């Protein structure tokens, strides 16, 4: 059963130094507020897992939270590169960053395996590419019926997965809709799952395309209106595209980034 608690308490209780932590949300419903709270609580040596590390992971990497990044596409969508991620990779600033790199299909299937209680997943992937040369979590497996060789990826089971959703009921059941991404799998693959929501309501009336996460698979639910901004929450607010463009300038330079970081740390979640 999920406890409904303030976000600082949820992060304090469930996110520890050295943990493997996944913040998911595919362009949509990215849990920015939770990422910022992890920065404020100065977690260190995290293995950060995310299919599409974008601004939120650039910020966490720049803040020194991460020792390793597990991902399949790292960029500022529609804008360009992640300068803090590049700086960490090339100069080890503020801390060295190890990477484990996959394709989207591989990462999605790693979460599927994790959510399914399986040690690996099978896919038609990676064939002929250079990715397996650099990624130990890609292997091959042979079909026991046809003899065909296929790609295998190891399961992802984060210590903590954090996602954002539109709403929860008072028991802590969560409902999200719009592009659902890989959030259900990431939550079900994790030891503990934290969900930030726009609001708590009495009844989760059905919504077309909605995914429901029962309270008994969640550790904590925190009410954080706007918790996905500058990404968007379908039906609540739009993507702040200007903020994505502005991040390019802020993040390009260690100084302007550090000023941004100090300001963030001064804010309360």
């Amino acid at each position: 059963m999920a406890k409904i608690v303030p976000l600082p308490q949820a992060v304090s209780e469930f996110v520890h130094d050295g943990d493997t932590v996944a913040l998911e949300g595919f362009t949509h419903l990215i849990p920015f507020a939770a990422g910022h709270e992890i920065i404020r609580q100065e977690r260190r040596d995290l293995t950060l897992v995310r299919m599409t590390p974008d601004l939120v992971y650039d910020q966490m990497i720049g803040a020194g939270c991460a020792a390793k990044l597990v991902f399949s596409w790292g960029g500022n969508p529609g804008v360009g590169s992640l300068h803090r991620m590049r700086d960490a990779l090339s100069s080890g600033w503020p801390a060295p960053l190890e990477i484990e790199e996959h394709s989207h299909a591989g990462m999605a299937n790693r979460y599927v395996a994790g959510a399914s209680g399986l040690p690996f997943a099978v896919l038609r992937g990676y064939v002929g590419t250079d990715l397996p040369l650099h990624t130990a979590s890609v292997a091959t497996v042979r079909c026991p019926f046809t003899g065909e060789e296929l790609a295998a990826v190891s399961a992802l089971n984060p210590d903590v997965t954090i996602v954002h959703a539109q709403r929860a009921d008072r028991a802590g059941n969560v409902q999200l809709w719009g592009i659902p991404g890989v959030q259900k799998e990431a939550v079900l693959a994790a030891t503990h799952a934290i969900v930030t929501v726009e609001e708590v309501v009495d009844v989760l009336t059905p919504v077309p395309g909605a995914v429901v996460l029962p309270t008994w698979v969640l550790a904590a639910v925190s009410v954080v209106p706007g918790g996905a901004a500058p990404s968007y929450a379908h039906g609540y607010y739009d993507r702040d595209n200007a903020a994505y463009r502005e991040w390019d300038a802020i993040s390009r330079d260690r100084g302007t980034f550090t000023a941004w970081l100090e300001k963030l740390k001064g804010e309360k979640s």
Partner: protein
Amino acid sequence: MSWTADEMMSIAAARALRDGQACFVGIGLPSKAANLARRLHAPGLVLIYESGTIGTEPDELPLSIGDGILADSALAVVSVPEIFNYWLQPGRIDVGFLSGAQVDRFGNINTTVIGPYDEPDVRLPGSGGAPEIAASCREVIIVMRHTLRAFVERVDFVTSLGHGDGPDDRRTLGLRGAGPTRVITDLGVLEPDPDTAELVLTALHQGVTVEQVRAETGWPVEVSADLMITAAPSEQELSTLRAMRTVGV
């Protein structure tokens, strides 16, 4: 009317798509061309994005692969695992529409690193959905700007397999899709030679010379015996392209 090389590229790419095809679309140039095709000759083109939107009909161009506008106008929205496993992987998508930072003479694509993997000169975003799009679609169309930096003898990193090192590689590796059938640039069109799988110049856009293409291509590019000239953009193509707006821009 006059037009830019970029406009010619988008229009030529749009023309490559046929009505009724199912097209797995990468963001950026492919998305622009696919949405243009849907507004022109291919109203029944089925657009599929890796964010899980199937049959989406956005009235503006998405800025990112998971924009709300893609979900709002989609016939179906599915999870990311489902879009890759049930829709892309079995080979039911006609065309994969990709771009990249580098493409080589065999149509292999690099979106990972320029330089060595461990100490790259430039770290690029990585693979996203492209490796499996390139592997599983019935055919792949690549659209990218033609520059010497981008069109290289051999990509620094094979993010998405084209024809590997030659005509038999895909079959040997067990891939079922045909791989890249066309590379559409702002200068012209390259297609794999049926015998060697090497990209050869098969069309020039109006006003472009073979020498210009050679100057921007990192291998001694062959020219097809029946080199075509791309038809100039029509007024309708240009006005439709120019009327397309991108979300939030």
